[in-house]
């Protein structure tokens, strides 16, 4: 294996890293907010809220992300005059916003189910106990349901973030020059597929290992009551990281 070539490729691919991270970060954030809304909608008892949320989750989990990307980018491109009349064309004109929309909607559908499951997993006794202490709905959500559900959701959410990082590679197909796009271009120029994809793969792997580690750390930090009592006082708080 040609190490000099690999090093050169790695550096060239790093140019796409900011875009990859931006796509992953924003889509997880926007998708997360939307997911929370969807989860609350489907947990409400009102059919007018429950059914749209369920339909959304059904459609976006039942179709491939790549189809959603194409539908939003090329499919909506067909309706430029209408979208211009509505004044939203500037948004759909940009490949970046199209990719971000597709990624966010997609992750929202998956994350909504994770959040819903996490909220449902909160033991009823704890909610009852909270009510018995006279907590209002908001206090209950903030003090009891929120923290417990968050801890419960973390492992699954970690997987979802990892798959979002991986999914950003699909943006390469609609002209966005992130890591996979550059990798494809380099292959077309040098015709050395295996080496280039090893380099690109290692970049994603490193991001994902960092994400997984960070969330494991968060989980550890959030569950002090599940840990065995320390034999001697911990040296410093930094030990948590």
């Amino acid at each position, binding site marked *: 294996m040609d190490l000099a070539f690999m090093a050169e490729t790695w550096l060239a691919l790093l140019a796409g890293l900011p875009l990859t991270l931006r796509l992953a970060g924003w889509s997880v954030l926007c998708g997360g907010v939307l997911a929370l809304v969807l989860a609350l909608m489907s947990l409400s008892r009102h059919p007018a809220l429950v059914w749209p949320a369920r339909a959304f989750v059904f459609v976006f989990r039942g179709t491939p*992300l790549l189809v959603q990307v194409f539908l939003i980018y090329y499919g909506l491109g067909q309706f430029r005059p209408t979208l211009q009349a509505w004044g939203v064309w500037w948004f759909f004109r940009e490949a970046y916003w199209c990719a971000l929309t597709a990624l966010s909607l997609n992750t929202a559908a998956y994350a909504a189910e994770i959040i819903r499951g996490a909220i449902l997993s909160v033991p009823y006794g704890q909610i009852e106990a909270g009510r018995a202490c006279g907590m209002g709905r908001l206090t209950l959500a903030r003090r009891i349901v929120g923290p417990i559900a968050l801890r419960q959701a973390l492992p699954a959410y970690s997987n979802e973030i990892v798959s979002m990082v991986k999914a950003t590679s699909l943006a390469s197909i609609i002209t966005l020059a992130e890591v996979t796009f550059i990798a494809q271009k380099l292959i077309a120029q040098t015709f050395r597929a295996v080496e280039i994809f090893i380099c690109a793969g290692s970049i994603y792997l490193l991001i994902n290992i960092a994400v997984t580690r960070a969330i494991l750390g968060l989980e550890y930090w959030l569950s002090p009551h599940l840990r065995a009592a320390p034999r001697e006082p911990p040296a410093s708080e930094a030990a948590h990281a």
Partner: protein
Amino acid sequence: MTYLELMGFGPTGWGPAMLRAAGMTVVVAVLGFLAGAVFGSLAAWAKLSRVRPLRWLADGYTTLLRGVPDLLVIYLFYFGGSAALSAVARMLGGQGFVGVPALLTGALALGAISGAYQAEVYRGAFLALARGELEAARAVGMPPALMFRRIVAPQVLRYAIPGLGNVWQLVLKESALISVTGLVELLRQSQIGSGSTREPFPFYLTAAALYLAITTVSTYGFGWLETRSMRGVRRA
């Protein structure tokens, strides 16, 4: 052209092509899922083994395949696969190149990806087995092969069904990525059609609807399997 003419079954309609492509999607997904069952059970066995290098190997495999974009894995199989095969053929005294059909490449790539997920499912299912049953089998003197066939396999499969259902859905959706290798499955056909007619919306919409139909049918299929496999289990 109206939507019905475009997606219809007339001389210029794309209906038959789209349906055939949907069939190809199912074929490549099924093959990929089956290949993944082989990779996955091997990896699960390695993960549960007492031999440390085997465990490392299996952990490496699942970490790698679950951490790298599937698009990259597919490209790796597509471009790397036949180059490697050709090299092997040349070593064995053969000559020229060994081409790998797109369907085979796609199935193997999907197999490698889904194998990493299936490994966890099988491992979890094995750990859910009641230890006492294994001990009982050993106590009555069952050889390992018989124990695997009578005790382990049937129960692991039963516990694995819900997880396998999820992996199947994943494989079905990942199969859309195989379109980049030129295999004419559903998404590829939609790309061809929308390029040719310059009407991307109807094509991708139809593709989405067909995917939704396939995933919905398989959800019911796995639900039925789950109920059926749990017939002998007492529910709380």
